[in-house]
């Protein structure tokens, strides 16, 4: 278990402010946030590689705040793998054994298991220079796991990889988490990746934690405007709440289905929750407004349609096929509709 209490750092550039975070034993925890939010700094602080100003860090109940990195039992795998270039794959993997008293048999067994699990048998005698990104990442993982750390920190392990390698490493990570009792703390700025890997996570922005919770919760019930934006709720409007209705823009009334417990804040709607039709949709639990398509942004399989309603612009994600069927072009008058439960209120 990792406990971080009231942690502050004072560095050039990225500072952390009042970080409080508890990660359970054996958990796969994800730290999310945009570039420059302080994610990597938090990992380096945990590993003892960066000095802190205030606060405490406890690992399995033991205060490690004052310990040097080599005494913490916390492994770190960087985004750019940082394999030792003057050593072969095998030497890289076995590097940590020089500094740990592990009996030879246990070490051999562990080595075999890790090499098999990460499929490194054929790479043992190669130098890092001759490995692909995915292979380097697997070696970096193996090297970190070889010393059996109680906590393994992963700094965007997938971001530098090709999509097909990414899938592979993601699979490896899940497998490793299941087969070891290591607590994994992984940093990513990709929300989809986070959802597919972990149960719990935290969102960090400008060196502060904005929300901690179940991934599903963060995804469905973002606590702040920033997180709503981060998890892809592209329709975020300032709102005044009246009963079970929200008033956005000048006087557009959005039915919420239930009464929020605050008077004003924001409402947020996912673009994929907004449907576009040519006729008005009349249903009890649906909001429907007429508007004009102002632009269409090609996103590969989808179009993101911008629909102007009064002075507000809604963004809706529609499959390319539906677009043709509905024969929607720029300037077409359409109706957009969304269910009341698709509207998230933020204080």
């Amino acid at each position, binding site marked *: 278990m990792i406990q971080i209490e009231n942690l502050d750092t004072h560095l050039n550039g990225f500072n952390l402010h009042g970080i409080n975070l508890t990660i359970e034993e054996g958990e796969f925890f994800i730290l999310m946030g945009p570039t420059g939010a302080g994610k990597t700094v938090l990992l380096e602080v945990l590993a*003892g*590689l960066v000095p802190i100003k205030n606060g405490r860090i406890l690992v399995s109940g033991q205060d490690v705040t004052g310990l040097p*990195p080599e005494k913490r039992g916390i492994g770190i795998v960087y985004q*750019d793998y*940082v394999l030792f270039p003057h050593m072969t794959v095998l030497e890289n993997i076995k590097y*940590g054994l*020089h500094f*740990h008293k592990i009996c030879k048999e246990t070490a051999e067994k562990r080595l075999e298991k890790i090499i098999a699990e990460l499929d490194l048998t054929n790479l043992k005698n190669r130098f890092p220079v001759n490995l692909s990104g995915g292979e380097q990442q697997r070696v970096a993982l193996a090297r970190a796991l070889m*010393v059996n750390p109680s906590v393994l920190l992963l700094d965007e392990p997938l971001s530098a990889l090709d999509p097909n390698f990414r899938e592979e490493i993601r699979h490896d990570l899940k497998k490793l988490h299941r087969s070891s009792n290591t607590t994994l703390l992984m940093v990513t700025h990709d929300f989809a990746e986070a959802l597919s890997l972990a149960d719990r996570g935290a969102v960090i922005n400008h060196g502060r934690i904005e929300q901690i919770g179940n991934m599903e919760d963060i995804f469905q019930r973002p606590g702040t405007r920033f997180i709503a934006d981060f998890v892809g709720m592209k329709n975020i409007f300032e709102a005044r709440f009246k009963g079970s209705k929200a008033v956005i823009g000048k006087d557009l009334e959005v039915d919420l289905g239930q009464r929020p417990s605050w008077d004003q804040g924001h409402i947020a709607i996912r673009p994929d929750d907004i449907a576009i039709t040519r006729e008005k949709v009349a249903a009890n639990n649906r909001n429907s407004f007429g508007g004009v398509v102002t632009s269409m942004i090609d996103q590969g399989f989808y179009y993101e349609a911008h629909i102007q309603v009064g002075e507000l612009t809604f963004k809706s994600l529609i499959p390319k096929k539906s677009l043709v069927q509905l024969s929607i072009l720029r300037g077409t008058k359409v109706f957009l509709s969304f269910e009341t439960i698709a509207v998230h209120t933020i204080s």
Partner: protein
Amino acid sequence: MRQNELFFWLTVSFSLLILAFILLPLIEMMTAPSAPMLAEAIRDKDVMRSIWLSIYSAAIAALISFILGTPLAYVLARQDFKGKRLVEGIIDLPIVIPHPVIGIAILGVVGKNHWIGNILADLGARVMGSVTGIITVLTFVGLPLYVHAAKNGFEGISPRLERVSRSLGASMFSTFFRITFPLAWRSMLVGIVMCSARAISEFGAVVVIAYHPMIAPVLIYERFEGYGLKYSQPVAFWLVLVCLVLFFILRLLTLSNKKKT
């Protein structure tokens, strides 16, 4: 760049001019002494003694620079601190100060009128006119070159390599000897070669501190003053040969360095 342009021919001719400017005097000097004179010079005990003194005092200066300069180079490459620029400026001072001034400056500290000089005298260490003095001066002028080269080497190594090593259980010492040093040794060796090359060529500062025992540049100067150009050339020939060997080692090292990256 097109070959029929004036600009192209300007660059070529200026480059050739510079090459000729450097090579002509050297070739002239290396070819002027006759074989019997060269043989006589190499049999001359004074000549051999002075060249040997030059080489080994320069080597010791380089060794001292290596031992004392490596930690400094590492700190400069890894840490940002207030006054770092100032420290870097101070390290460069021996390069910009005129050589005889360096000799006089050192003399001021190790002479009889200074407490450091007095302590050294009490300990029985003689700096004036001694090998100790020569090595002191050569270290002074050579150190900046070593520190620069080693610092560049350390800067080329990602601090993350060291961080990963620490997280795998290695202490800072183990990390330095297992990761940093194996990756930086080429740059450090280049620094040692540059430092000793610089030390071998020093004249102005040494002559102030120690005319005797004679290092090669002082002997060449003395032969030139006393007997003329013809008698100084053979000594110069042998000294230049030594410098060239050092220079070639340096080029070889930097070349193979480039190939690796």
